[in-house]
């Protein structure tokens, strides 16, 4: 076996192996997680029982995430019709308080950080949200504040995602996380020429 023969196999193996890892882990955030009414989550976050793919995907998009008993994390990338969330469109996020001690919804740009827009409106949480009668809330997710008292700014966010955090989820929810009725997000309008 010549050095050239071995060297080319090693080099090609490295390119293929590492390339596949980058591709797979890059997509795992939506690929391997469970879907909870369109919100993606992984109940193995932070746990030693997580497989190497789960651990890598969570480290990429949610490093320092807590275990499920402490916090449940859900992220969604698309509206109720499955269309990717984008700053060109305006959305209404509607729901009721999830069964947890505290919750928040935070908007992140595609780079997994808060969008650079200077609006100071990256999130809404249980303590600040204004509720209608019956406890329902509506959050306006758009590039500009408008008709709703609750606003999360998507300005300069490009393709974005929303992360729902449930701190200290109630025991009943932990028994069956799929029983969660998370907020629903619907597209209200999009800038002219856009879907």
């Amino acid at each position, binding site marked *: 076996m010549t050095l050239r*023969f*071995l060297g*080319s*196999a*090693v080099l*090609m*193996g*490295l390119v*293929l*192996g*590492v390339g*596949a*890892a*980058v591709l*797979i*882990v890059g997509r795992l955030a939506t690929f391997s997680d469970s879907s909870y009414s369109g919100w993606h989550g992984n109940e193995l976050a*932070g*746990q*030693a029982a*997580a497989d*190497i*793919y789960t*651990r*890598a995907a*969570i*480290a*990429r*998009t*949610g*490093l*320092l995430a*807590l*275990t499920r008993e*402490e916090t449940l994390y859900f992220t969604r990338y698309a509206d109720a019709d499955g269309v990717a969330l984008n700053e060109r469109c305006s959305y209404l996020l509607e729901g009721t308080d999830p069964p947890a*001690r*505290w919750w*928040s919804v*935070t908007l*992140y740009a595609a780079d*997994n*950080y*808060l*969008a*650079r*827009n*200077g609006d*100071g409106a*990256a*999130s809404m*949480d249980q*303590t*600040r949200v204004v509720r209608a009668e019956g406890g329902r809330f509506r959050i306006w997710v758009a590039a500009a504040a408008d008709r709703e008292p609750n606003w999360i700014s998507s300005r300069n966010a490009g393709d974005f995602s929303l*992360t729902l*955090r449930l*701190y*200290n989820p109630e025991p009943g929810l932990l028994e069956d996380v799929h029983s969660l009725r998370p907020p629903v997000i619907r597209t209200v309008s999009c800038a002219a020429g856009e879907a």
Partner: protein
Amino acid sequence: MSGVTRWLLLTMAFAAIAHLGSVWAAPYLLMRVATERLQMGGEVRVNTMQQPDRVTEAARAVVRPSPDLAYSICTFDLSQGPLHLRAAAWDDYMSLSVFAANSDVVFVRNDRQSAGAIEITLALDGQRAPEGREVVISPSQTGIALVRRLAPDQARFNAATVAAAGDICAPAS
């Protein structure tokens, strides 16, 4: 077996090893990157509890930070001995968590599970820890300890900053 077949089999074998190795190593690498960012190029020492500014769009050390939480962070190294970790009392949600070098949660406790401050001694297996505090064994020499306090507005963040002055990450004595 032809030369081409042998080359393909060898390439696939190396690809599998490289693939599994890089997926396994990714969390270690990402924790290392986060640690270096949190230490701000050596400006913040290891085994020291620091209180970053309130999370804004400028926060770029750790992905998906919550702007509704006030954090205290300690990048730790247990090579010189056990550490005393303390999260001072807070009148709302608060937790102390410890993450190993591979990002696994080693320990987490919140204010409902521990009246007042949350205190532990963090040690490697086999290290002699002083008596009097709960000892948590870390599977890795390095990692990150994190205090989270619910502080969704500036006034609460200011109050959390005052409380965080009582947080500790220091050699256990």
